[in-house]
């Protein structure tokens, strides 16, 4: 028997992810687990979330909770009372860290903005808004139901309610050129509080965009060269504005990084509840990948008979090492090579490291391995060189 790798959960922190699976409308680029439903019984959802919290808390006693994240779907469709009930229940199960971060993803519409104060009173201390674009034509193309004016109004309300506000933009969109994006990004930075997520549009299979792309009908997407130029321009502009990248697509004023997301990239433990939510938990020397039923109806039924979980897999040392590599390399601070070696039972391949470092794609600083600025846009190619197995 090879030694079981029993990593301390404290290495990466401990978080709770709560998935709210409903949207008012499905966006054509989104491959997240979301459903459109008119009738939502919030009390039933509270009952189910609380049941799942009891189940998962029983497996993870004595841990300090560093962060909670309400994701979706569109969590800003949740009643503030629902959010409050989940936060209160979580507090009753795990002691909260003094600096606990509680984020809720919000759609930047006027109706949602009306609930922001309620969320703040429930305990939410950070809002992440899906603004996506700062011009109406592109918002419509992305299938968004809000306008730029609505987004700006919602954003002002968010700033008034919360100290910490982030928003998302999607770039490398159809027919977008470098100058368009640079102008839009500068405008975004003039609004930004302390955090920005800037994602290049990715065509995912199984989405409306994916179908149109496969049919050759999604035209005007930038080629890889333009996309790379846009990426570099993004780094430069954000850095100059005091919001450098701390992760591939995330920018923050120093200290304002998303603590919940850092748990993922630090390869910490996180509990995932709600339809389709994933988790990683270390119990008794083993690390498990968990997954809940995706369909809301199925999930509810499963919760009623004891557990919403549909999959629980033991991660092998190699799986863990590769997940740590894939997540950790996304961070500017890089990854701890000693921790990789401890997880896998062998160090990173020296010959591949030399190859990548000769090409100027990675750099080593003591025990840390980091991707260089040139390496970031081709991170997947770098990770493939280093993957264990």
């Amino acid at each position, binding site marked *: 028997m090879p030694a079981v790798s029993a990593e301390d959960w404290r290495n990466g922190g401990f978080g709770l992810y709560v998935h709210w699976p409903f949207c008012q409308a499905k966006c054509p680029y989104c491959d997240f687990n979301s459903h459109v439903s008119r009738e939502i019984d919030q009390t039933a959802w509270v009952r189910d979330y609380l049941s799942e919290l009891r189940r998962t808390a029983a497996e993870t006693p004595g841990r300090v909770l560093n962060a909670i994240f309400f994701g979706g779907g569109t969590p800003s469709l949740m009643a503030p009372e629902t959010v409050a009930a989940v936060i209160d229940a979580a507090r009753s199960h795990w002691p909260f860290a003094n600096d606990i971060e509680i984020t809720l993803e919000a759609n930047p519409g006027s109706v949602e903005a009306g609930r922001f104060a309620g969320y703040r009173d429930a305990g939410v201390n950070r809002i992440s808004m899906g603004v996506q674009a700062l011009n109406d034509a592109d918002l419509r193309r992305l299938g968004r139901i809000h306008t730029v004016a609505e987004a700006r109004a919602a954003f002002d309300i968010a700033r008034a309610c919360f100290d910490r506000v982030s928003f998302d933009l999607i770039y490398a969109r159809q027919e977008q050129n470098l100058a368009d994006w640079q102008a839009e990004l500068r405008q975004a930075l003039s609004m930004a509080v302390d955090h920005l997520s800037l994602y290049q549009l990715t065509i995912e299979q199984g989405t409306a965009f994916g179908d149109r792309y496969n049919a050759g009908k999604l035209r005007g997407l930038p080629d890889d*060269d333009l996309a790379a130029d846009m990426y570099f321009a993004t780094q430069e502009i954000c850095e100059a504005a005091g919001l450098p990248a701390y992760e591939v697509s995330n920018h923050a004023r120093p200290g304002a990084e998303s603590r919940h997301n850092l748990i993922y990239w630090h390869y910490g433990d996180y509990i995932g509840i709600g339809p389709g939510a994933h988790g990683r938990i270390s119990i008794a020397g083993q690390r498990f990948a968990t997954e809940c039923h995706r369909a809301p109806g199925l999930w509810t039924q499963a919760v009623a008979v004891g557990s919403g979980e549909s999959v629980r897999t033991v991660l092998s040392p190699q799986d863990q090492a590769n997940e740590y590599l894939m997540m950790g390399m996304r961070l500017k601070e890089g990854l701890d090579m000693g921790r990789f070696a401890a997880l896998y039972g062998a160090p990173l391949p020296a010959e591949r490291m030399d190859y990548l470092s000769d090409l100027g794609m990675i750099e080593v600083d003591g025990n840390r391995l980091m991707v260089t600025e040139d390496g970031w846009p081709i991170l997947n190619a770098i990770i493939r060189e280093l993957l264990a197995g």
Partner: protein
Amino acid sequence: MTELSHIRNFSIVAHIDHGKSTLADRLIQETGTVQDRDMKEQLLDAMDIERERGITIKANTVRLDYKADDGETYILNLIDTPGHVDFAYEVSRSMRAVEGSLLVVDSTQGVEAQTLANVYQAIDADHDIVPVFNKIDLPASDVSRVAEQVEDVIGIDASGAIAVSAKTGQGIHEVLESIVAHLPAPKGERDAPLKAMLVDSWYDAYLGVIVLVRIMDGVLKKGERIKMMSNGSVHHVDRIGVFRPQMQPVDELGPGEIGFLTASIKQVRDTRVGDTITHEKKGCETPLPGFKPAQPVVFCGLFPVDSAEFEDLRDAIEKLALNDASFSYEMETSAALGFGFRCGFLGLLHLEVIRDRIEREYNIELITTAPSVVYHIYMKDGTMQELHNPADMPDLTYVDHLEEPRIKATILVPDEYLGDVLKLCQDRRGLQEDLSYAGPRAMVVYDLPLNEVVFDFYDRLKSVTKGYASFDYQMMGYRQDNLVKMQILVNDEPVDALSVMVHRDRAELRGRAMVEKLKDLIPRHMFKIPIQAAIGGKVIARETLSALRKDVTAKCYGGDATRKRKLLEKQKAGKKKMRQFGKVEIPQEAFISALKMDS
């Protein structure tokens, strides 16, 4: 034994899809040789590949007992011959083993190039020929047009032609009657020394090598000692019999009969098609004419995708070679592809069949390098060397000149595609020899370098004629030409497996096409990669594959970990299948696809 007057031996000549196998099935059924409940489609095509492609690779035979309208019972021996030019020699031997042929023509299609090539073999063998026009159940059937074509193009009398539908069974009885009435009985002397032709042979796991023979003179019995006249080897006959179509033992085989023998022969290699078999003692004096050993004309490298499977590949190739005397192999080492084998084949179909069998029956994934013909290199010292692999091309300072094999290609094509066909042949360095019309179709005869045909000529021909052309060829010997070896350099290093022999005048064009193709086939790396074509030290074409600019996952959060990890791991496994060449990884398909020409 059967009276010679009550035996008829025949083969069926047809183009692919004209219904040869279905007709054979009907004849077997009509004579009650196989019970209806045991019938399955295309009874005689035993190999999967034969059934799938509708082609016959090995000669098959079946003995039918037929009670004719005259009240007499006849033995009809049908030999189903291979129908492809790669096996032209085997076809010629099968033809010599029978006295007549049924010429099957699809009455909705007409005569095709392959029909011509095979019917000429039958005419060469002095066959009496009964034309059979098939598929008369289809609305597009036009028997009188096809009859006219057979007379005009092939030049045989079509007045005795029989219209049939092998599908419905219509006309099958008439075919059987015509075989009895119009095909000659075999000749032979029962009392003469044994003289039998080895028509074909194959390996059976239980019985060893099974030899298909036609007795010309004398009588063959179980327990006798026989001699192969080509090499003098002697064997003890353990069983003889006939195919109905399964094996049925008989006491003896006499003149005019066709059957099998087994003699504990371990390797098919020891049984050469066309050889003469006689008794060890009191044998015949002279062998049958026309025997020649198999000569491979196309060579290519076969390498295992997974280099750990080299020994498995060796094993598979050795086993296949035991069963196929026309297939040759020797070990080859390639800097790009590692250890593999340089294999020789009778032609492209033969190559594909062997490759398919290795992949399917032995479950080994293969990289096949570009097929090459055999060049004759005349050295300055007056000697001649055969070149099977461009990578082995000797230093030019010692070379006087090169010769390449040429073929005579016959193409039949509807006239609206004639221009495209002529252009294709001209582009491939063809010299036109003949152009005539057979009804609405043109018949084009070209003298072409085999080198220009082995690779993708047939694919291109099908593509420019939307599948309406038919094509056949025969080898015509060697001719001198201005041929050079072109190398491909990837990231400044020559890739031996991509070296090709080309005509000097076409080198730039081919070189340009290859580097452009490779630029698309090789994935972007983290650095830019020059791809060059060169003759000697001189670069004649160059492309640069620019460095990878973008490959990053925009969003990767907790819910993405499993899926994204698996995706990256799968991509990494895909990378492992590529061939590392210096710092560059080249996908397997590049070694073949780079050579395909689009025009």
